[in-house]
Protein backbone atom coordinates (compact mmCIF):
# COMPACT_ATOMS: atom_id res chain seq x y z
CA UNK A 1 0.00 0.00 0.00
CA UNK A 2 2.81 2.42 0.86
CA UNK A 3 4.56 1.44 -2.37
CA UNK A 4 1.66 2.53 -4.45
CA UNK A 5 1.69 6.00 -2.90
CA UNK A 6 5.23 6.43 -4.18
CA UNK A 7 4.36 5.48 -7.72
CA UNK A 8 3.90 8.13 -10.37
CA UNK A 9 0.33 8.74 -11.53
CA UNK A 10 1.28 8.20 -15.19
CA UNK A 11 2.71 4.75 -14.42
CA UNK A 12 -0.16 3.75 -12.17
CA UNK A 13 -2.93 4.58 -14.61
CA UNK A 14 -1.02 2.81 -17.39
CA UNK A 15 -0.60 -0.29 -15.22
CA UNK A 16 -4.17 -0.25 -13.83
CA UNK A 17 -6.45 1.68 -16.23
CA UNK A 18 -9.57 1.17 -14.02
CA UNK A 19 -7.90 3.40 -11.40
CA UNK A 20 -8.77 6.54 -13.36
CA UNK A 21 -12.45 5.74 -13.01
CA UNK A 22 -12.02 4.72 -9.38
CA UNK A 23 -10.58 8.12 -8.49
CA UNK A 24 -13.17 9.98 -10.53
CA UNK A 25 -15.77 8.45 -8.17
CA UNK A 26 -14.15 10.65 -5.54
CA UNK A 27 -13.99 13.70 -7.77
CA UNK A 28 -10.24 13.30 -8.23
CA UNK A 29 -8.81 13.98 -11.69
CA UNK A 30 -5.13 13.72 -12.43
CA UNK A 31 -3.46 16.78 -13.92
CA UNK A 32 0.19 16.06 -13.18
CA UNK A 33 1.11 12.59 -14.39
CA UNK A 34 4.64 12.94 -12.99
CA UNK A 35 3.50 13.50 -9.43
CA UNK A 36 3.26 10.45 -7.16
CA UNK A 37 -0.12 9.29 -5.94
CA UNK A 38 0.88 10.22 -2.40
CA UNK A 39 1.71 13.78 -3.43
CA UNK A 40 -1.54 14.09 -5.34
CA UNK A 41 -3.64 12.95 -2.40
CA UNK A 42 -1.68 15.19 -0.01
CA UNK A 43 -2.36 18.10 -2.32
CA UNK A 44 -6.12 17.80 -1.99
CA UNK A 45 -7.75 20.29 0.34
CA UNK A 46 -9.41 19.00 3.50
CA UNK A 47 -12.57 20.53 2.08
CA UNK A 48 -12.44 18.20 -0.92
CA UNK A 49 -12.52 15.13 1.32
CA UNK A 50 -15.32 16.63 3.38
CA UNK A 51 -17.40 17.28 0.28
CA UNK A 52 -16.88 13.76 -0.99
CA UNK A 53 -17.90 12.38 2.39
CA UNK A 54 -14.74 10.37 2.91
CA UNK A 55 -11.41 10.80 4.66
CA UNK A 56 -7.96 9.98 3.34
CA UNK A 57 -7.65 6.83 5.44
CA UNK A 58 -10.96 5.39 4.20
CA UNK A 59 -10.12 6.32 0.62
CA UNK A 60 -6.84 4.39 0.86
CA UNK A 61 -8.69 1.45 2.38
CA UNK A 62 -11.08 1.42 -0.58
CA UNK A 63 -8.19 1.79 -3.02
CA UNK A 64 -6.48 -1.16 -1.41
CA UNK A 65 -9.65 -3.26 -1.68
CA UNK A 66 -10.11 -2.23 -5.30
CA UNK A 67 -6.54 -3.11 -6.23
CA UNK A 68 -6.82 -6.46 -4.48
CA UNK A 69 -9.84 -7.21 -6.58
CA UNK A 70 -8.13 -6.23 -9.83
CA UNK A 71 -5.02 -8.23 -9.12
CA UNK A 72 -6.79 -11.21 -7.56
CA UNK A 73 -8.86 -11.85 -10.66
CA UNK A 74 -5.86 -11.29 -12.89
CA UNK A 75 -3.68 -13.79 -11.06
CA UNK A 76 -6.11 -16.52 -10.22
CA UNK A 77 -9.68 -17.49 -10.89
CA UNK A 78 -11.89 -18.17 -7.91
CA UNK A 79 -11.30 -21.65 -6.46
CA UNK A 80 -13.80 -23.90 -8.16
CA UNK A 81 -16.80 -25.32 -6.39
CA UNK A 82 -17.29 -28.83 -7.74
CA UNK A 83 -20.11 -29.92 -5.48
CA UNK A 84 -22.40 -28.72 -2.75
CA UNK A 85 -23.85 -30.93 -0.04
CA UNK A 86 -27.02 -30.15 1.88
CA UNK A 87 -27.23 -31.88 5.25
CA UNK A 88 -30.78 -31.88 6.58
CA UNK A 89 -31.96 -29.95 9.61
CA UNK A 90 -35.63 -29.93 10.58
CA UNK A 91 -38.97 -28.70 9.28
CA UNK A 92 -41.18 -25.98 10.79
CA UNK A 93 -42.49 -28.38 13.44
CA UNK A 94 -39.03 -29.55 14.43
CA UNK A 95 -39.29 -32.95 12.72
CA UNK A 96 -35.85 -34.01 11.53
CA UNK A 97 -35.10 -33.72 7.82
CA UNK A 98 -33.19 -36.89 7.23
CA UNK A 99 -31.33 -36.17 4.04
CA UNK A 100 -27.83 -35.66 2.80
CA UNK A 101 -27.94 -34.41 -0.74
CA UNK A 102 -24.96 -33.70 -2.95
CA UNK A 103 -25.44 -31.45 -5.97
CA UNK A 104 -22.82 -31.79 -8.69
CA UNK A 105 -21.76 -29.29 -11.33
CA UNK A 106 -23.71 -29.70 -14.52
CA UNK A 107 -26.75 -31.22 -12.81
CA UNK A 108 -30.34 -30.04 -12.88
CA UNK A 109 -32.60 -30.47 -9.84
CA UNK A 110 -36.15 -29.24 -9.66
CA UNK A 111 -37.85 -28.06 -6.50
CA UNK A 112 -41.58 -28.48 -6.08
CA UNK A 113 -43.90 -27.49 -3.27
CA UNK A 114 -46.69 -25.05 -2.52
CA UNK A 115 -46.08 -21.33 -1.94
CA UNK A 116 -44.64 -20.74 1.50
CA UNK A 117 -43.40 -24.33 1.81
CA UNK A 118 -39.81 -23.22 2.22
CA UNK A 119 -38.32 -23.05 -1.27
CA UNK A 120 -36.73 -19.64 -0.77
CA UNK A 121 -35.53 -20.72 2.67
CA UNK A 122 -33.65 -23.64 1.08
CA UNK A 123 -32.02 -21.28 -1.37
CA UNK A 124 -31.16 -18.85 1.40
CA UNK A 125 -29.51 -21.70 3.32
CA UNK A 126 -27.30 -22.50 0.33
CA UNK A 127 -26.51 -18.86 -0.31
CA UNK A 128 -25.56 -18.28 3.33
CA UNK A 129 -23.65 -21.58 3.52
CA UNK A 130 -25.71 -22.37 6.61
CA UNK A 131 -23.85 -24.04 9.46
CA UNK A 132 -26.74 -25.09 11.65
CA UNK A 133 -27.25 -21.37 12.27
CA UNK A 134 -30.45 -20.69 10.32
CA UNK A 135 -34.08 -21.45 11.27
CA UNK A 136 -33.94 -24.81 9.44
CA UNK A 137 -30.82 -26.08 11.18
CA UNK A 138 -29.35 -27.18 7.84
CA UNK A 139 -25.64 -27.47 7.14
CA UNK A 140 -24.02 -26.78 3.77
CA UNK A 141 -20.70 -28.31 2.73
CA UNK A 142 -18.72 -27.05 -0.23
CA UNK A 143 -16.53 -29.67 -1.91
CA UNK A 144 -17.27 -31.88 1.08
CA UNK A 145 -15.88 -29.40 3.56
CA UNK A 146 -17.04 -26.71 5.93
CA UNK A 147 -16.61 -23.44 4.02
CA UNK A 148 -14.63 -20.52 5.40
CA UNK A 149 -17.23 -18.27 7.13
CA UNK A 150 -15.61 -15.16 5.64
CA UNK A 151 -16.65 -16.36 2.17
CA UNK A 152 -20.24 -15.54 3.11
CA UNK A 153 -19.50 -11.92 2.38
CA UNK A 154 -17.22 -12.29 -0.58
CA UNK A 155 -18.69 -11.04 -3.84
CA UNK A 156 -16.47 -13.23 -5.96
CA UNK A 157 -17.40 -16.45 -4.14
CA UNK A 158 -21.12 -15.89 -3.97
CA UNK A 159 -22.70 -19.32 -4.29
CA UNK A 160 -26.10 -18.53 -5.75
CA UNK A 161 -27.16 -16.60 -8.85
CA UNK A 162 -30.91 -16.10 -9.14
CA UNK A 163 -33.17 -15.80 -12.14
CA UNK A 164 -36.77 -15.13 -11.37
CA UNK A 165 -39.94 -14.51 -13.25
CA UNK A 166 -40.42 -10.90 -12.19
CA UNK A 167 -36.89 -9.76 -12.96
CA UNK A 168 -36.43 -6.91 -15.38
CA UNK A 169 -33.65 -4.80 -16.76
CA UNK A 170 -33.85 -1.41 -15.13
CA UNK A 171 -30.90 0.23 -16.88
CA UNK A 172 -31.41 2.19 -20.03
CA UNK A 173 -28.51 0.93 -22.16
CA UNK A 174 -28.03 -1.37 -25.14
CA UNK A 175 -27.62 -5.13 -24.89
CA UNK A 176 -23.93 -4.94 -25.83
CA UNK A 177 -23.20 -2.13 -23.34
CA UNK A 178 -25.03 -4.08 -20.67
CA UNK A 179 -23.05 -7.30 -21.12
CA UNK A 180 -19.84 -5.28 -21.44
CA UNK A 181 -20.50 -3.57 -18.14
CA UNK A 182 -21.09 -6.90 -16.40
CA UNK A 183 -17.88 -8.35 -17.86
CA UNK A 184 -15.96 -5.26 -16.80
CA UNK A 185 -17.11 -5.61 -13.20
CA UNK A 186 -15.74 -9.16 -13.26
CA UNK A 187 -12.38 -7.81 -14.42
CA UNK A 188 -12.46 -10.13 -17.40
CA UNK A 189 -10.06 -9.71 -20.31
CA UNK A 190 -10.99 -10.20 -23.99
CA UNK A 191 -14.39 -8.70 -23.29
CA UNK A 192 -15.41 -8.04 -26.90
CA UNK A 193 -15.44 -11.67 -28.05
CA UNK A 194 -17.25 -12.68 -24.89
CA UNK A 195 -19.93 -10.06 -25.41
CA UNK A 196 -20.48 -11.30 -28.98
CA UNK A 197 -20.65 -14.92 -27.73
CA UNK A 198 -23.25 -14.11 -25.11
CA UNK A 199 -25.47 -12.20 -27.54
CA UNK A 200 -25.20 -15.04 -30.06
CA UNK A 201 -26.12 -17.62 -27.40
CA UNK A 202 -29.03 -15.54 -26.15
CA UNK A 203 -30.32 -15.37 -29.71
CA UNK A 204 -30.21 -19.15 -29.96
CA UNK A 205 -32.47 -19.32 -26.89
CA UNK A 206 -34.86 -16.55 -27.85
CA UNK A 207 -37.52 -17.03 -30.49
CA UNK A 208 -37.21 -13.53 -31.91
CA UNK A 209 -33.74 -12.20 -32.80
CA UNK A 210 -32.17 -9.12 -31.25
CA UNK A 211 -28.79 -7.41 -31.67
CA UNK A 212 -26.18 -5.78 -29.45
CA UNK A 213 -27.68 -2.41 -30.37
CA UNK A 214 -31.15 -3.26 -29.03
CA UNK A 215 -31.86 -1.35 -25.79
CA UNK A 216 -32.32 -3.83 -22.91
CA UNK A 217 -35.55 -2.15 -21.92
CA UNK A 218 -36.97 -2.87 -25.41
CA UNK A 219 -36.49 -6.65 -25.13
CA UNK A 220 -39.56 -8.87 -24.94
CA UNK A 221 -40.09 -11.11 -21.92
CA UNK A 222 -38.63 -14.11 -23.73
CA UNK A 223 -35.65 -12.16 -25.06
CA UNK A 224 -34.91 -10.72 -21.62
CA UNK A 225 -35.01 -14.15 -20.06
CA UNK A 226 -32.76 -15.51 -22.82
CA UNK A 227 -30.23 -12.73 -22.31
CA UNK A 228 -30.28 -13.17 -18.53
CA UNK A 229 -29.68 -16.89 -18.84
CA UNK A 230 -26.86 -16.57 -21.39
CA UNK A 231 -25.27 -13.78 -19.34
CA UNK A 232 -25.50 -15.81 -16.12
CA UNK A 233 -24.10 -18.90 -17.85
CA UNK A 234 -21.04 -17.07 -19.15
CA UNK A 235 -20.43 -14.27 -16.70
CA UNK A 236 -21.80 -15.01 -13.27
CA UNK A 237 -19.18 -16.21 -10.82
CA UNK A 238 -21.78 -18.18 -8.88
CA UNK A 239 -21.71 -21.96 -9.38
CA UNK A 240 -25.34 -22.45 -8.35
CA UNK A 241 -28.10 -20.99 -10.52
CA UNK A 242 -31.60 -20.84 -9.13
CA UNK A 243 -34.35 -20.47 -11.66
CA UNK A 244 -37.79 -19.53 -10.47
CA UNK A 245 -40.04 -20.79 -13.30
CA UNK A 246 -39.18 -20.09 -16.93
CA UNK A 247 -42.35 -19.18 -18.74
CA UNK A 248 -42.99 -20.98 -21.94
CA UNK A 249 -43.24 -18.07 -24.33
CA UNK A 250 -40.40 -16.80 -26.45
CA UNK A 251 -37.61 -18.95 -25.06
CA UNK A 252 -36.37 -22.46 -25.77
CA UNK A 253 -36.31 -23.86 -22.26
CA UNK A 254 -34.51 -27.06 -23.16
CA UNK A 255 -31.65 -25.18 -24.82
CA UNK A 256 -31.55 -22.76 -21.90
CA UNK A 257 -31.07 -25.56 -19.40
CA UNK A 258 -28.52 -27.35 -21.55
CA UNK A 259 -26.49 -24.12 -21.88
CA UNK A 260 -26.33 -23.81 -18.10
CA UNK A 261 -25.39 -27.48 -17.80
CA UNK A 262 -22.70 -27.08 -20.45
CA UNK A 263 -21.33 -24.16 -18.49
CA UNK A 264 -21.07 -26.51 -15.48
CA UNK A 265 -23.65 -24.76 -13.34
CA UNK A 266 -25.47 -26.50 -10.53
CA UNK A 267 -29.03 -25.76 -11.62
CA UNK A 268 -31.90 -25.62 -9.13
CA UNK A 269 -35.28 -24.88 -10.56
CA UNK A 270 -38.41 -24.03 -8.61
CA UNK A 271 -41.28 -24.96 -10.88
CA UNK A 272 -44.77 -26.33 -11.15
CA UNK A 273 -44.48 -26.96 -14.87
CA UNK A 274 -44.42 -30.71 -15.55
CA UNK A 275 -42.08 -30.34 -18.54
CA UNK A 276 -39.46 -28.42 -16.59
CA UNK A 277 -39.81 -30.69 -13.57
CA UNK A 278 -39.24 -33.80 -15.69
CA UNK A 279 -36.27 -32.26 -17.50
CA UNK A 280 -34.41 -32.43 -14.20
CA UNK A 281 -32.72 -35.64 -13.11
CA UNK A 282 -34.10 -35.24 -9.62
CA UNK A 283 -36.74 -33.28 -7.83
CA UNK A 284 -36.96 -32.17 -4.24
CA UNK A 285 -40.39 -32.18 -2.68
CA UNK A 286 -40.66 -29.44 -0.08
CA UNK A 287 -43.31 -29.41 2.57
CA UNK A 288 -43.72 -27.44 5.78
CA UNK A 289 -40.21 -25.98 5.58
CA UNK A 290 -38.39 -29.25 5.06
CA UNK A 291 -37.26 -31.43 2.15
CA UNK A 292 -39.77 -34.22 2.47
CA UNK A 293 -38.61 -36.44 -0.35
CA UNK A 294 -36.04 -36.64 -3.11
CA UNK A 295 -37.43 -38.27 -6.25
CA UNK A 296 -35.32 -39.45 -9.18
CA UNK A 297 -37.06 -38.90 -12.50
CA UNK A 298 -38.05 -42.41 -13.67
CA UNK A 299 -37.72 -43.77 -17.20
CA UNK A 300 -41.53 -43.84 -17.44
CA UNK A 301 -41.54 -40.15 -16.61
CA UNK A 302 -38.84 -39.47 -19.20
CA UNK A 303 -41.03 -41.19 -21.80
CA UNK A 304 -43.94 -39.03 -20.74
CA UNK A 305 -41.72 -35.99 -21.07
CA UNK A 306 -41.54 -36.68 -24.81
CA UNK A 307 -45.34 -36.78 -24.98
CA UNK A 308 -45.63 -33.61 -22.92
CA UNK A 309 -43.23 -31.87 -25.25
CA UNK A 310 -45.36 -32.89 -28.21
CA UNK A 311 -48.42 -31.33 -26.57
CA UNK A 312 -46.35 -28.27 -25.76
CA UNK A 313 -45.12 -27.91 -29.33
CA UNK A 314 -48.66 -28.20 -30.62
CA UNK A 315 -49.69 -25.45 -28.29
CA UNK A 316 -46.79 -23.24 -29.36
CA UNK A 317 -47.65 -23.82 -33.00
CA UNK A 318 -51.18 -22.59 -32.28
CA UNK A 319 -49.74 -19.50 -30.66
CA UNK A 320 -47.61 -18.78 -33.71
CA UNK A 321 -50.62 -19.20 -35.99
CA UNK A 322 -52.69 -16.90 -33.83
CA UNK A 323 -49.95 -14.31 -33.94
CA UNK A 324 -49.72 -14.35 -37.69
CA UNK A 325 -53.44 -13.69 -37.94
CA UNK A 326 -54.68 -17.19 -38.76
CA UNK A 327 -58.02 -18.64 -37.70
CA UNK A 328 -57.93 -21.56 -35.26
CA UNK A 329 -60.93 -23.40 -36.61
CA UNK A 330 -58.74 -26.41 -37.43
CA UNK A 331 -56.42 -27.58 -34.61
Amino acid at each position, binding site marked *: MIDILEKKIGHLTAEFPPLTE*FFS*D*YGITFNDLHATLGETLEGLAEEHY*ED*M*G*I*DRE*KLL*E*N*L*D*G*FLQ*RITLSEIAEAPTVSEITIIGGHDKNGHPEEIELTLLRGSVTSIVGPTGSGK*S*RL*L*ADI*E*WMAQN*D*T*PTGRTIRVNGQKPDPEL*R*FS*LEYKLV*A*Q*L*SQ*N*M*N*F*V*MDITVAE*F*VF*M*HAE*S*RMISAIDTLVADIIAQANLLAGEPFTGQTPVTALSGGQ*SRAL*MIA*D*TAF*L*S*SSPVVLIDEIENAGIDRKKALSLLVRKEKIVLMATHDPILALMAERRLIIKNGGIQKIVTTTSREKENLIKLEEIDNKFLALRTRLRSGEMLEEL
Partner: protein
Amino acid sequence: MLFKSDVHKKMKLVTISGPPSSGKTAVLVNVIKSLKNSGFRAGAVKYDCLATDDDALFRSLGIPVQTGLSGNLCPDHYFVSNIEECLKWGISLNLDLLVSESAGLCNRCSPHIKGVLAVCVIDNLMGVTTPKKIGPMLKFADIVVITKGDIVSQAEREVFAFQVRRANAKAKIMHVNGITGQGASELTSLFLQAPETETLDGGILRFSMPAALCSYCLGETKIGMEHQLGNVKRIKIKQEQP
Protein backbone atom coordinates in the same frame (compact mmCIF):
# COMPACT_ATOMS: atom_id res chain seq x y z
CA MET B 1 -29.07 -19.09 15.42
CA LEU B 2 -28.35 -17.48 18.79
CA PHE B 3 -31.11 -17.66 21.36
CA LYS B 4 -31.94 -15.34 24.18
CA SER B 5 -31.00 -17.99 26.71
CA ASP B 6 -27.46 -18.01 25.28
CA VAL B 7 -26.73 -14.39 26.10
CA HIS B 8 -27.09 -12.31 29.23
CA LYS B 9 -25.76 -9.03 28.12
CA LYS B 10 -26.32 -5.31 27.93
CA MET B 11 -28.24 -3.56 25.18
CA LYS B 12 -26.84 -3.30 21.67
CA LEU B 13 -27.54 -0.29 19.49
CA VAL B 14 -27.69 -0.50 15.70
CA THR B 15 -27.97 2.57 13.46
CA ILE B 16 -29.74 2.03 10.13
CA SER B 17 -29.74 4.60 7.40
CA GLY B 18 -30.38 4.73 3.70
CA PRO B 19 -32.06 6.79 1.02
CA PRO B 20 -35.86 7.18 1.18
CA SER B 21 -37.87 4.13 0.02
CA SER B 22 -34.80 1.90 -0.10
CA GLY B 23 -36.51 -0.68 2.11
CA LYS B 24 -35.05 0.13 5.54
CA THR B 25 -38.32 -0.47 7.35
CA ALA B 26 -39.17 -3.66 5.41
CA VAL B 27 -35.75 -5.09 6.23
CA LEU B 28 -36.08 -4.10 9.89
CA VAL B 29 -39.56 -5.62 10.18
CA ASN B 30 -38.12 -8.96 9.07
CA VAL B 31 -35.15 -8.64 11.42
CA ILE B 32 -37.40 -7.79 14.35
CA LYS B 33 -39.64 -10.80 13.63
CA SER B 34 -36.59 -13.01 13.57
CA LEU B 35 -35.30 -11.48 16.84
CA LYS B 36 -38.65 -12.04 18.52
CA ASN B 37 -38.74 -15.65 17.36
CA SER B 38 -35.44 -16.21 19.11
CA GLY B 39 -36.75 -14.60 22.30
CA PHE B 40 -34.95 -11.26 22.14
CA ARG B 41 -36.51 -7.99 23.21
CA ALA B 42 -36.14 -5.38 20.50
CA GLY B 43 -37.14 -1.74 20.28
CA ALA B 44 -37.11 0.81 17.51
CA VAL B 45 -36.54 4.52 17.07
CA LYS B 46 -37.71 6.02 13.81
CA TYR B 47 -36.34 9.38 12.73
CA ASP B 48 -38.05 11.18 9.90
CA CYS B 49 -38.70 14.67 8.60
CA LEU B 50 -42.34 15.52 8.23
CA ALA B 51 -44.43 12.46 8.96
CA THR B 52 -44.10 8.73 9.32
CA ASP B 53 -46.41 5.73 9.49
CA ASP B 54 -43.64 3.29 10.23
CA ASP B 55 -44.09 3.57 13.99
CA ALA B 56 -47.50 1.88 13.63
CA LEU B 57 -45.89 -0.88 11.59
CA PHE B 58 -43.25 -1.48 14.27
CA ARG B 59 -45.87 -1.28 17.01
CA SER B 60 -47.94 -3.93 15.26
CA LEU B 61 -45.00 -6.27 15.80
CA GLY B 62 -45.49 -5.74 19.51
CA ILE B 63 -42.29 -3.82 20.21
CA PRO B 64 -41.79 -0.44 21.91
CA VAL B 65 -41.28 2.47 19.48
CA GLN B 66 -40.21 6.11 19.61
CA THR B 67 -40.72 8.53 16.74
CA GLY B 68 -38.68 11.66 16.16
CA LEU B 69 -39.72 14.17 13.52
CA SER B 70 -37.09 16.76 12.70
CA GLY B 71 -39.46 19.19 10.97
CA ASN B 72 -37.45 21.97 9.35
CA LEU B 73 -34.14 20.90 10.87
CA CYS B 74 -31.55 18.69 9.12
CA PRO B 75 -32.70 15.21 10.19
CA ASP B 76 -29.10 14.12 10.63
CA HIS B 77 -28.35 16.88 13.12
CA TYR B 78 -31.64 16.15 14.85
CA PHE B 79 -30.67 12.47 15.11
CA VAL B 80 -27.32 13.11 16.75
CA SER B 81 -28.83 15.55 19.26
CA ASN B 82 -31.40 12.97 20.35
CA ILE B 83 -29.88 9.54 20.04
CA GLU B 84 -28.53 9.55 23.59
CA GLU B 85 -32.00 10.11 25.07
CA CYS B 86 -33.30 7.26 22.94
CA LEU B 87 -30.50 4.99 24.08
CA LYS B 88 -31.38 5.69 27.73
CA TRP B 89 -35.01 4.95 26.99
CA GLY B 90 -34.08 1.60 25.44
CA ILE B 91 -31.86 0.67 28.39
CA SER B 92 -34.62 1.60 30.85
CA LEU B 93 -36.90 -0.91 29.11
CA ASN B 94 -34.28 -3.65 29.44
CA LEU B 95 -34.13 -4.17 25.69
CA ASP B 96 -31.61 -6.52 24.15
CA LEU B 97 -31.35 -4.55 20.95
CA LEU B 98 -32.40 -1.08 19.88
CA VAL B 99 -32.53 -0.16 16.21
CA SER B 100 -32.43 3.47 15.20
CA GLU B 101 -33.68 4.12 11.69
CA SER B 102 -33.01 7.42 9.98
CA ALA B 103 -33.87 8.71 6.52
CA GLY B 104 -30.87 9.60 4.41
CA LEU B 105 -32.36 12.50 2.56
CA CYS B 106 -29.38 14.28 1.04
CA ASN B 107 -27.06 11.28 0.51
CA ARG B 108 -24.40 13.19 2.45
CA CYS B 109 -25.90 12.08 5.77
CA SER B 110 -23.48 10.71 8.27
CA PRO B 111 -25.35 9.09 11.13
CA HIS B 112 -22.83 6.40 12.03
CA ILE B 113 -21.12 6.38 15.41
CA LYS B 114 -17.76 4.85 16.26
CA GLY B 115 -18.19 1.59 18.17
CA VAL B 116 -21.88 1.23 17.23
CA LEU B 117 -22.93 -1.21 14.49
CA ALA B 118 -23.67 0.86 11.39
CA VAL B 119 -25.93 -0.37 8.62
CA CYS B 120 -26.78 1.24 5.29
CA VAL B 121 -29.71 0.00 3.21
CA ILE B 122 -29.75 0.72 -0.52
CA ASP B 123 -31.70 -0.84 -3.35
CA ASN B 124 -30.84 -2.23 -6.75
CA LEU B 125 -33.33 0.00 -8.53
CA MET B 126 -31.32 3.15 -7.85
CA GLY B 127 -28.99 2.38 -10.72
CA VAL B 128 -25.39 1.24 -10.77
CA THR B 129 -23.84 4.67 -10.42
CA THR B 130 -25.66 5.39 -7.17
CA PRO B 131 -23.15 3.92 -4.70
CA LYS B 132 -20.53 6.54 -5.56
CA LYS B 133 -23.09 9.29 -5.05
CA ILE B 134 -23.77 8.26 -1.47
CA GLY B 135 -21.55 9.71 1.20
CA PRO B 136 -20.56 8.61 4.69
CA MET B 137 -23.76 6.70 5.39
CA LEU B 138 -22.59 4.14 2.82
CA LYS B 139 -18.83 4.65 2.83
CA PHE B 140 -18.54 4.32 6.64
CA ALA B 141 -21.10 1.56 7.21
CA ASP B 142 -20.15 -1.85 8.65
CA ILE B 143 -22.92 -3.65 6.81
CA VAL B 144 -24.44 -2.65 3.48
CA VAL B 145 -27.81 -4.26 2.86
CA ILE B 146 -28.93 -4.38 -0.77
CA THR B 147 -32.66 -4.81 -1.36
CA LYS B 148 -35.05 -5.35 -4.28
CA GLY B 149 -32.76 -7.95 -5.81
CA ASP B 150 -35.76 -10.00 -6.90
CA ILE B 151 -36.78 -7.49 -9.56
CA VAL B 152 -33.52 -6.80 -11.36
CA SER B 153 -31.37 -9.13 -13.41
CA GLN B 154 -28.53 -11.15 -11.88
CA ALA B 155 -26.06 -9.08 -13.91
CA GLU B 156 -27.34 -5.80 -12.52
CA ARG B 157 -27.19 -7.25 -9.01
CA GLU B 158 -23.57 -8.27 -9.48
CA VAL B 159 -22.54 -4.95 -11.01
CA PHE B 160 -24.35 -3.03 -8.27
CA ALA B 161 -22.65 -5.03 -5.51
CA PHE B 162 -19.32 -4.43 -7.23
CA GLN B 163 -19.97 -0.67 -7.20
CA VAL B 164 -20.85 -0.83 -3.51
CA ARG B 165 -17.56 -2.63 -2.87
CA ARG B 166 -15.76 0.16 -4.68
CA ALA B 167 -17.32 2.75 -2.39
CA ASN B 168 -16.72 0.72 0.76
CA ALA B 169 -14.01 -1.93 0.63
CA LYS B 170 -14.51 -3.34 4.13
CA ALA B 171 -18.28 -3.52 4.70
CA LYS B 172 -20.13 -6.79 4.74
CA ILE B 173 -22.50 -6.75 1.78
CA MET B 174 -25.80 -8.58 2.31
CA HIS B 175 -28.72 -9.14 -0.03
CA VAL B 176 -32.01 -9.06 1.80
CA ASN B 177 -35.47 -9.35 0.31
CA GLY B 178 -37.80 -7.11 2.29
CA ILE B 179 -40.90 -8.91 1.00
CA THR B 180 -40.03 -12.58 1.44
CA GLY B 181 -37.52 -11.94 4.20
CA GLN B 182 -34.83 -13.95 2.41
CA GLY B 183 -31.52 -13.00 4.03
CA ALA B 184 -33.14 -11.37 7.09
CA SER B 185 -32.28 -14.12 9.57
CA GLU B 186 -28.67 -13.95 8.39
CA LEU B 187 -28.68 -10.19 8.91
CA THR B 188 -30.16 -10.73 12.37
CA SER B 189 -27.26 -12.95 13.33
CA LEU B 190 -24.91 -10.09 12.43
CA PHE B 191 -27.01 -7.65 14.51
CA LEU B 192 -26.61 -9.97 17.48
CA GLN B 193 -22.85 -9.71 17.17
CA ALA B 194 -23.04 -5.92 17.51
CA PRO B 195 -21.03 -4.31 20.31
CA GLU B 196 -22.94 -3.29 23.44
CA THR B 197 -23.62 0.39 23.99
CA GLU B 198 -24.03 1.58 27.57
CA THR B 199 -23.70 5.27 26.90
CA LEU B 200 -23.09 7.63 24.02
CA ASP B 201 -21.76 10.41 26.23
CA GLY B 202 -18.34 11.12 24.75
CA GLY B 203 -19.11 9.05 21.66
CA ILE B 204 -17.82 10.20 18.30
CA LEU B 205 -19.41 10.27 14.85
CA ARG B 206 -17.53 8.32 12.21
CA PHE B 207 -17.58 11.33 9.91
CA SER B 208 -18.65 14.96 10.14
CA MET B 209 -22.26 15.72 9.29
CA PRO B 210 -23.28 17.94 6.39
CA ALA B 211 -22.31 21.46 7.32
CA ALA B 212 -24.87 24.19 7.69
CA LEU B 213 -25.10 27.61 9.24
CA CYS B 214 -25.89 30.24 6.70
CA SER B 215 -28.55 32.91 6.61
CA TYR B 216 -31.03 30.44 5.12
CA CYS B 217 -30.61 28.09 8.09
CA LEU B 218 -31.83 30.97 10.21
CA GLY B 219 -34.98 31.53 8.22
CA GLU B 220 -33.91 33.88 5.43
CA THR B 221 -36.23 33.53 2.42
CA LYS B 222 -34.97 36.29 0.11
CA ILE B 223 -32.68 35.38 -2.80
CA GLY B 224 -29.61 37.40 -3.74
CA MET B 225 -25.96 37.96 -2.78
CA GLU B 226 -26.71 40.53 -0.11
CA HIS B 227 -28.90 38.07 1.78
CA GLN B 228 -26.31 35.30 1.88
CA LEU B 229 -24.32 35.10 5.08
CA GLY B 230 -22.24 32.43 6.78
CA ASN B 231 -21.32 29.10 5.24
CA VAL B 232 -22.06 29.79 1.58
CA LYS B 233 -20.58 27.92 -1.35
CA ARG B 234 -20.53 29.02 -5.01
CA ILE B 235 -21.11 26.91 -8.09
CA LYS B 236 -18.24 26.95 -10.59
CA ILE B 237 -19.74 27.78 -13.98
CA LYS B 238 -17.61 26.20 -16.68
CA GLN B 239 -17.12 28.02 -19.97
CA GLU B 240 -17.69 25.26 -22.51
CA GLN B 241 -17.76 25.70 -26.26
CA PRO B 242 -21.22 24.83 -27.61
